[in-house]
């Protein structure tokens, strides 16, 4: 009975860290964390664009969130989160609809992660050339 309950429950943080699921485990964890992080930003983003209804004074005052260097690390995390979630999600869609692609899971994940990192680095560079 206890085992049955455990199977229905997603692993706890301790289980996740001690479980040796290989690459797929970290792909899953990063997908979930990036999804929740991007959702958190989306909530903030809908609210800030909504405030544009109240005119430029209100909206521009709020922009320190996006312009201040203090918040830049979060922007960098957001950029990586969106890219990783998008590209790793593409891997999941490919595997779901084309099971033969299972053989390429690992290289696809490595590719998705490397592309996400490289494009994130380019956007960090853009902070300097466009600022």
């Amino acid at each position, binding site marked *: 009975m206890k085992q049955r309950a455990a199977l229905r429950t997603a692993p706890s943080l301790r289980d996740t860290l001690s479980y040796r699921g290989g690459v797929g485990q970290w792909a899953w964890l990063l997908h979930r964390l990036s999804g929740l992080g991007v959702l958190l930003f989306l909530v903030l983003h809908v609210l800030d664009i909504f405030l544009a209804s109240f005119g430029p004074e209100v*909206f521009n005052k709020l922009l320190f969130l996006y312009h201040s260097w203090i918040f830049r690390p979060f922007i960098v995390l957001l950029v990586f989160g969106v890219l990783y979630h998008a590209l790793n999600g593409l891997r999941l869609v490919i595997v779901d609809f084309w099971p033969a692609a299972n053989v390429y899971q690992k290289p696809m994940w490595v590719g998705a992660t490397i592309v996400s990192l490289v494009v994130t680095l380019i956007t960090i560079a853009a902070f300097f050339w466009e600022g």
Partner: protein
Amino acid sequence: MYPTTPRESGTFGARPRPAGGFELWSWYFMRISGAVLLLLAVFHLLWMHLVIGLDNITFETIVRRWTGPLGAFWRVYDLALLVFALTHGMNGARWVINDYVHRRGWNLGLKSALGVLYALLMLMGAYVIFTFQAPPTIVAP
């Protein structure tokens, strides 16, 4: 206790396809909206960061985007982004709640709060997309 190999779990990383009903529908929606967002959201992110530049974004950026010559296009684009991203994100959060919160009261309470937040943000976002007007002092170039 937990599946130790992908084959044992019956899946290869992705959430298994549900048998039917709303959950099957939501499983397909996540994949279709995900593919749509791969184009819409990633283009939006790269456009804002690499073409416009984060530091150049001000109120005028919105005026140009929504009241310029391509205003109608960008409003439709942003509405699609709002609907797909918010629905995809909230459904993902619903899956996370179902994965971790098994007390019936907490599960339903959290999902209700999520539903209220979803409706509220959808209304606020749609409201500003449909009603935004440039103030008389700022004219779109």
